[in-house]
Every structure is written in C-alpha cells, then in structure tokens.
C-alpha cells in the first residue's frame, strides 16, 4: 500500500475522511493493539485507547495546528502507550522509567509540548467517548432533546419544536432523558477510571 503523508492523515482525521481513517486503522492499530495486549490489556482497552488517541490528535490538529515531522505512526503509538502507562500507573504498576523514556523520546523529536498537552486531552476524550456511547443508545426523541439542551435551547423552545402540550411536560421529559443518560454513564465500569483527570 502506498504511503499517505502525515499531513494528509491529519487533515483526513479532522475532515472525518473514512478512507483515511480506514488507512490509519489498517496501518497503525495492529502495533498499538499488540503493545496493549502484551502489557496486561484487553481488546476493549486497545480499541478505546486507540480511539481516544486519534480524537486527542484531532483536537491538537484542529486547534493547535499540530505538525508531526517524525511520522504519524510514531506519534500515535507514543500517545497510546503513554495513556496505557498512565492507566497502569494509577492501578499501582511501576511504569515511571518507561514513561520517562517515552517523554524524552518525544522531546528529542520536537514534540515535547504537544505530548504533554495530549495527555490531558486524551483523558477528556475518554470521558466524551463514554458520554457518547450511552447517548447513542437513547431513544431518538431523547437524543434530539438532549442535543437541543446542550446547544442552549430553552424549555419553551424545546416545547415548541416537539409540539409538547406544555412547558412543564417539556421540562419533565428533559429531566427523564437527562437522568437516564446520567445513570447509564455513571454505571459504566470505565467512567470512574477517568474521573480524576
């Protein structure tokens, strides 16, 4: 398979280009997956960590115009490894040396600042992934309603859009959807893992 440039990959991620995303999975997921499976992780961990890594890179490209001279593979691998090491450190594993080596390696490649920033983004993305995972399981009505709420629409506007009989009913409906989603998210076994970030 011909190589696609790092710039094309970064733009493809920001533009949600499915072919580029497919390329990224086919080229780089296996190595991340192998690392995680060989270091005490499971398939689910590999899937989530890779996805959060891509989303963190999306944020960096979109808002900070991330440039990677050393190749996309090197960066995504480092980002994912770092996240996995962080998770293992939090569960009492001794991983400091490896984390330090990784950080030094990124520093040498001129990616030190981005690498420090991506750590926080990565955990924020993990929470957002959990929110969305459960949001996508709600009824269409609840999804629409919560989206409107997030976009700042008032209860009155929601009542009019859905043709609800009263504002009170719209308010009640909103509360039901909101608490159903909140319950699902807080029951997620991975939610607490990312709570401290």
């Amino acid at each position, binding site marked *: *398979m*011909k190589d*696609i440039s790092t710039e094309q990959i970064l733009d493809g*991620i920001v533009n*949600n280009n*499915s*072919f580029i*995303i*497919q*390329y990224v*999975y*086919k080229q780089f*997921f296996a190595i991340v997956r192998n690392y995680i499976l060989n270091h005490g992780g499971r*398939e689910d961990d590999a*899937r989530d960590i*890779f*996805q959060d890594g*891509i*989303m963190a890179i*999306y944020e960096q490209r979109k808002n900070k115009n991330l440039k990677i001279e050393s190749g996309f593979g090197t960066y995504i691998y480092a980002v994912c490894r770092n996240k996995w090491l962080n998770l293992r450190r939090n569960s009492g594993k001794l991983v400091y040396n490896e984390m330090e080596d990784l950080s030094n390696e990124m520093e040498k490649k001129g990616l030190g600042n981005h690498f420090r920033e991506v750590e926080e983004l990565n955990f*924020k993305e993990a*929470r*957002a*992934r959990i*929110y*969305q995972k459960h*949001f*996508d399981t709600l009824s269409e009505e609840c999804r629409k309603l*919560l*989206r409107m*709420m*997030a*976009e700042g629409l008032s209860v009155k506007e929601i009542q009019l859009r859905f043709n609800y009989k009263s504002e009170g009913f719209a308010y009640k409906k909103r509360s039901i959807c909101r608490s159903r*989603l*909140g319950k699902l*998210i807080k029951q997620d076994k991975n939610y607490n893992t990312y709570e401290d970030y």
Partner: protein
Amino acid sequence: MADELRFQQELNETLSDSQKMQIRRTLNKTYFKTSYVYSFTSKWKLQAAAAAVVIMILAGGGVMFNYLQNSNPGNLALYEQYFETGNDIFTVRAGESILNNTIEEGMNAYNDKDYLQAIMLFNENSNNMAANLYAGFSFMKLSDFENAEYKFNEIIEDNNNLFIDQAEFNIALCYVATNNLEKAKQMLKVIVKEKTVYSEKAEKLLSNIQ
C-alpha cells in the same frame, strides 16, 4: 455539586460538537471492520492449521491423495478460487472513451496493489460503472465486503451498463466470504436462471458451497 457541574459541562461539550460525534462513529465503524478482518484472517489461519494437521495424520496412513480428491474447500478458499477481476474491462468491454486520468491512475494504483488509493480515485468517478466495479474489487481485496457489496449494488441499480452480471456474481462471492451462505445461494440461483456468461460459474460455485 462540583462533580455534577463538571458532568453537565462535559456532557454539553460532547453533545454540542456534532463533528466530533460523527468522527467517533466513523472510528467505531472502522474498528469493527478492521477487527472483522483480523478475526477473518485468524479464522482462516486456524482452518488452514487444522487442515494441515488432518493432512499430516492422513498422510501417515497413506491416504492423503484420496483425501485431497474428496475434500471440499472452505468458504474462504472457495471465494479465493472464484474471485477474478479481468484487466481488460476498461479497454475491451467499456471502450477507451470512458478512460480519464483519474480512472487510469486508479487502475495503476490497483495494479500496484495500492487498493486504498485506487478506491479514492475510482470514487471520484462514481458515475462511471466500470470505476464502481473496480472500486468494488478493491474493497474485496481489502476484505471489506460490506463496502464492496455497496459498490456492486450501485452498478445493479444503475441498470444501464455492461457490468451487472459481474456485479451480481461478485456480490454472491462477498456473501460466500462473509459466510452468508443462504444469501449467496439465493443470488447464485438467480444468476443461473438468467443464463448469462456467469451462469455456468454460478452453478459450479453453488454446488461447491458447503
């Protein structure tokens, strides 16, 4: 209280960014496609390993030749046996007139086994049914049978081109590869009935499906 505020704030941030939500969905979808390829490959490797063990045991008893003669290939082997593309489509069947630069580049990428690049180039010509056919073949080469089927269906729905028989046969092959055998049989029976150039092949494949 602070936790609740943070929760609400993050929830709002997540739900109000529809672009990011869409990307997460694409990532999920792609992961499942990719992991399907892994499991497909592993399953195939497992079958091959199992077959090798059986052959070794049988060879010990001096009946290997007999076994090979009577054995039925697995579905993946069947798919590989019947999958062929034919490189003359653009020049012979569709004529020179449909060739443009991107299709030609797409063909070059396809011949270089750079299937992802080929798909991108063929997709720029999605009104061209020959390009759709090759996009479908490229997806098959990447073991992405869902997208391949989608491309072949576009050809069938167009209903005004020379590639409908080929598209139908390849959809049946995609079904075989994904172990969707009932659907494969159904499609193959239709092809046999249509009496096209693919009817004989379809009949043979039908008789080989386990």
